[in-house]
């Protein structure tokens, strides 16, 4: 079992995920590590959607400039940009469901080799709700999951089959973990690259899902 600390740290995972984004893309970033991806887009012209009704999400406001009418989907105070537009929730999820968002980068509790994703509840224990995650994974052009490869007990979160209630069935395109990058392909997962200092053997050992070559 590879320790969770092995390979990339949170910021390195975010930086690797940022490489998935191309100039001109409209993108939705989930809560947690995905939020950090915004710090690594560099010169690329990326427009961030916040599914509560905004395109062109800016950084946190300076202290004292917080606006209660301007929050992101994580309920955090944010700012607008010169490209920003606001709209209602029905319109916002219309563009998500309609495939207008090129990519979503999301966290996960579990991912399976068939692209199944679970990230919204642990029965009887944690009930937060799916929020916009089910719409995002069903609608956006490309779903990229960013998460630790294993849980705190060292067990793989990259599974043959998800054990938790699904957020979406067969929806994940690419998985970026602290140990490397995997693609969902027919028959299982394909290793795209290993994180720095991680061998393919270590990546395979930490993965319950079928890895195809």
């Amino acid at each position: 079992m590879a320790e969770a600390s092995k390979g990339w740290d949170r910021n390195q995972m975010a930086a690797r995920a940022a490489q998935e984004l191309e100039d001109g893309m409209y993108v939705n970033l989930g809560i947690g590590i995905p939020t950090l991806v915004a710090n690594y887009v560099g010169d690329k012209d990326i427009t961030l959607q916040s599914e509560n009704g905004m395109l062109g999400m800016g950084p946190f406001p300076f202290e004292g400039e917080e606006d209660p009418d301007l929050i992101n989907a994580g309920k955090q105070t944010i700012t607008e940009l010169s490209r920003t537009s606001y709209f209602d929730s029905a319109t916002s999820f219309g563009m998500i469901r309609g495939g207008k968002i090129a990519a979503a980068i999301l966290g996960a509790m579990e991912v399976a080799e068939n692209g199944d994703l679970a990230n919204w509840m642990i029965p009887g224990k944690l009930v937060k709700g799916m929020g916009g995650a089910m719409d995002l994974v069903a609608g956006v052009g490309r779903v990229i999951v960013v998460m630790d490869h294993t849980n705190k007990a060292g067990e793989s979160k990259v599974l043959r089959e998800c054990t938790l209630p699904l957020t979406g069935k067969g929806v994940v395109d690419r998985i970026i973990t602290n140990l490397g990058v995997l693609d969902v392909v027919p028959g299982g997962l394909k290793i795209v690259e290993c994180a720095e200092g991680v061998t393919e053997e270590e990546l395979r050992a930490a993965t319950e899902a079928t890895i195809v070559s």
Partner: protein
Amino acid sequence: MTGSKKVYATADAALEGLLHDGMLIAAGGFGLCGIPELLIDALVRSGVKDLTIASNNCGVDGFGLGKLLDTRQIRKMISSYVGENAEFMRQYLSGELELEFNPQGTLAERMRAGGCGIPGFYTKTGVGTVIAEGKEVKTFDGQDYILERAIVADLSIVKAWKADDTGNLVFRKTARNFNPPAAMCGRVCVAEVEEIVPRGSLDPDMIHLPGIYVHRIVQGPHEKRIEQRTTRKKETA
């Protein structure tokens, strides 16, 4: 604006005659942003109970719709997210509160559909998950979709930035969120606003929700509480 037929002096007056136990209320807002604070307080005061409320969230403990959880006036929530609300989760897990989870976009579209005379629509969202259980599945062009039903509420309560006395509404930034679809799906809609402006002072091209959807209006003040105050430091030169 005194004398206008849609303008009411208080939130309590604006809800008079519209409430009954067991009713379905659609509420605008996302988290604590753009929520109808005054009308929620008036609902608490009214004592109306056994409510079903369609709203993305249920406020936080002790604020927003959370107040109606504290008073046990809510029987059922139709929501996408219960995080950030300990009492909501407690009542749900203990079985005191019924909860129908809806994906956020499905909830928004169900409200819009209810306002637009569309009794049902198909969506990919939730296919193959618990959300699809008991719902009709139909294949279009080789892909599976589930049938979702419209929400038509007995009453909608929403919050806008400005209104004129005919009920034309303008929202501000991300406080727009669920307010337009929630307003559309109500048989009656009551809106609370920060400012009622004279007729003709809103640009007709820039009205977010036409007055036809809004039956009663009441003016603020609003607390507009911030849920997660996140900031960055100004770099010193």
